[in-house]
């Protein structure tokens, strides 16, 4: 069994893409479609890495990120934020961290997601 990666996204197309790419490279993808479900899966599945979309309805992605990074049990799991906003990391970083209380995510990847770049980032963070 490869390392477990939690994909959190509200779009099936995006989940399908990421999970297929990761599965084909030997990882075990786990899926959640919103922040609430994502947090449940983090506790139940204890993933090695989280790949998440931040732009989900109801502030789901941001809330989940805050919870993750303030929870002793989960704060060391590396997080890659998938961003659709082509404004560079800085803007998203501020939104995600809501000020400076929350540490920044371990990586950002922009849509359209380059599969090789994503795989490389994942493998770097897991080594």
């Amino acid at each position, binding site marked *: 069994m490869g390392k477990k990666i939690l994909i959190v996204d*509200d*779009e*099936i*197309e*995006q*989940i*399908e*893409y*990421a*999970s*297929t*790419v990761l599965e*084909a490279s030997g990882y075990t*993808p786990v*899926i959640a*479609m*919103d922040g*609430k479900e994502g947090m449940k899966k983090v506790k139940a599945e204890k993933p090695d890495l989280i790949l998440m979309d931040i*732009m989900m*309805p*109801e502030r789901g992605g941001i809330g989940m990120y805050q919870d993750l990074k303030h929870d002793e049990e989960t704060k060391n799991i590396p997080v890659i934020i998938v961003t*659709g*906003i*082509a404004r560079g990391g800085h803007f998203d970083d501020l939104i995600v961290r809501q000020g400076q209380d929350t540490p920044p995510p371990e990586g950002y990847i922009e*849509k*359209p*997601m*380059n*599969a*090789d770049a994503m795989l490389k980032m994942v493998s770097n963070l897991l080594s």
Partner: protein
Amino acid sequence: MSKLLLIDDEEPVRKIVGLYLRSHGYEVFTAADGPKGIELFQREGPSIVLTDIKMPGMDGIEVLKKIKQTSPETEVIVITGHGDMDLAIQSLQFDASDFITKPVGNEALSIALKRAEERVDTRRLLKEYTDNLEVMVKEATEELSKAHDFQKNLIQSSIDGIIASDKDGTIVVFNRGTEDLLGYTADEVVGKVPIDTVYLPGVGEKINETLIAEAYGGKNRLVNYENVLISKNGEEIPVRISGATLFENGEKTGVVCFFQDLREIKRLQRELIQIERLSAIGQAVAGMAHYTKNILNGLQGGVYIVNTSLKKDKPDLLRKGWGMVENNVSRISDLVMNMLIYSKEREPDYVSCSPNDIAQEVYDLMYETLKARSAKLDYLMKEKGMHPDIKLSKDFDPSIDECYLDPTGAHRCLLNLVTNAIDACTQEPDEDKDFRVIIRTRKEDDGISFDVVDNGVGMSKEVQEKLFERFFSTKGPKGTGLGLLVTRKIVDEHGGTISFESEPGQGTTFTMHFPCRKDSSDTIASPV
């Protein structure tokens, strides 16, 4: 106490009459002859003089003339001897108030005095009244001149242009605001040129006609009429004109017009339109870019997986990757279709068709999409039922006949609404709901209606207000805001209506009403 002067050369008369008069409350001065009488008169200024006519030296007529000369308001009563009628008449000609005959009877004296007193009073009242009147006239004149100055200042210092013309149309008031606006000085135009000089040909008549008519602010008024004025150097200046007919004693005496310079407003309006246009384009391009990026993301993923399958010889991956490619190709073709319709590249093509067939097509298409979505979810989640299915159902009215519609357009509208309805269900945080979307058709007196009902997330008041704004979307980069715009455009082209009811947390119902046409020549009114 009134002063009274009694002149008589006969001492007994002075005594008796003097006693009588004093007893009646007069302060009596007596003189034995004319010159003494005049002297006393000048010193004491009595209001009534009683004088004998026949006296040595200066007679009563002379005394009367002298007194009347210096003090015409003094009441002079002459005392004549019996039978001196000529003298009595003469004295009346010289403005004596009255005459009494000797021997002086108390009754006659009393009546004459009473009359004289009345005249004195009347004269005093009249004088007071006249004096008052003078003060009042003075005050009123001052008020009037103040008001006039104030109005003049008001007119002069108004930033708006004010021109008044008399009943022949000649300019009579031309304020500073108008001088600045048009470049004429008041001296050049006031009393010299007709008001038509500052209008384009025909505009002056039009304004007069409008003033006469009830329209534009009522009879004899003109409110906010936009036109241009011609400046001294021939420039056309856009202005907003208000005006009124002037009346004096019910008769038309002229017209006053107020002109607001619209140059700056017009310039700002043009700028604003330009900015709005640019910002709408920017917004649209940004929306499209995000949405296309999402699709591209899926396409790249599909391509990557197909490549991996070929490289690593894994045929099961090939099917998956190809499915992703297909799926995203269909998304992009949906987008392009919507863009084309919105950009007017596509002309609606009205043919006789069955609305129920159109609804059935959309139902079938979306049913398959939902089935595929559910299967995909189950596969991805590696367990069944993690995410609730969305149940799509139909409720078609069998009595609906064929009618003239643009089937591709109607199909597109319904597809957009059902897609939105499904998205509204996936966005609802309450996952225990039994999500359902209903496509309904209804025959109505004047056409047919399509309803799309969902029990998804619903819309807040703010969202409802912005719903038909250009490129508004609640789906972030996952939407373009184009769907509803296109839907509305198509509905408008059919001369139909689109409406909705929505409650946050309860769901939304969209209704499209299309009027039913019997043949294609029954042309559709183009939307304004």
